[in-house]
């Protein structure tokens, strides 16, 4: 016990404080340098993020019900898969063409509603009204057996 106590006393207030300062500066500096290194690393995301995702299997035809859009993930975006009366499948981007809020399917009124500014669209993505300037964005789509594969914007 004596040795420990003696050693503890030898650490002066000045030593302790400079140790504390050095330690906190080192921790801060470590994270600052880490952030700095991250910042000069070329970003992997790009403004054309969609083209980088490419063709992506997002679901199967069997999982869809007619008249009930299914929300699926496509890269960093959301896409609605819609099965039509003739059995064909539609893929529409879930982002509102106004300021890209995520549209929700309203089962009562049978239309897509925008939670931000109240734009509304039909089940086919046709614009009904609202600040949105155009129809919802259609997505490129192909079938591989039963799999639905989505690949970026159809128009634009």
């Amino acid at each position: 016990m004596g040795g420990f106590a003696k050693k503890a006393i030898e650490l002066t207030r000045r030593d302790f404080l400079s140790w504390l300062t050095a330690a906190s500066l080192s921790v801060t500096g470590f994270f600052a340098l880490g952030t700095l290194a991250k910042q000069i690393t070329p970003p992997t995301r790009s403004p054309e993020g969609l083209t980088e995702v490419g063709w992506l299997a997002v679901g199967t035809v069997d999982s869809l019900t007619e008249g009930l859009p299914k929300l699926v993930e496509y890269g960093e975006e959301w896409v609605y898969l819609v099965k039509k009366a003739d059995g064909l499948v539609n893929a529409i981007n879930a982002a509102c063409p106004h300021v890209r809020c995520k549209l929700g399917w309203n089962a009562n009124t049978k239309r897509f509603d925008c939670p931000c500014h109240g734009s509304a669209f039909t089940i086919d993505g046709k614009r009904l009204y609202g600040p949105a300037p155009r129809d919802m964005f259609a997505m490129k789509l192909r079938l591989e057996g039963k799999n639905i594969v989505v690949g970026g914007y159809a128009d634009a």
Partner: protein
Amino acid sequence: MLSKVVRTIARPFDERFNLTNRLHESLLDKPVPDHARRYYFCFGGIAFFLFLTQAITGVLLTMYYVPSQDQAYSSVFYISNYVNYGWLLRSIHNWGAQLMVVFVMLHMLRVYITASYKHPREFNWVVGMLLLMTTMAFTLTGYLLPWDQKAYWGSTVTISLVEKVPFFGKSMANIIMGGDKLGQATLTRFFSAHIMVLPAGLVLFMAAHFWMVRKQGISGPL
């Protein structure tokens, strides 16, 4: 503890160049007088620290910024939305700039209130004024760089103020804008001033500022 590590690394250099003694004589061995141990005596140092953060974040921003009419805004958008921690980078540079102006002003007020500008420190007050002007020029030129509506019309207003100067106004505005209207030439000029001319000027004036403080010492108590 830490000083031991530093001393081990520094010893070979110290033996040859006698660095430690010189460092102590010229910089470190300067106890702060009692009357100056107040928080308001720290404003100048804080302004200097903020300048250092501005320099570091500024260098990082130039790695992504494109000073062209067509791409300036989209490159700034890219920094904010796609560069890793780019939003943090821009925020620190923006807030650092605001705070730097605030602390430069507070430092000036402190010097005025404690009457530190009086004989024999008048020249340091003059250099301080140059530093203030340079800082303001930094904020003016930096404001245009994002090239959005706010930047464009803000700079339009500032330059129209310059035009109102009697006799020389028109030609001064012409030189600032690099032509007779705000455009690509202005953006290039402001960018060049913001990252080359002004930093060089600020560092030069700061060196003079600090050298004079060291030479004359901190002013006495009231």
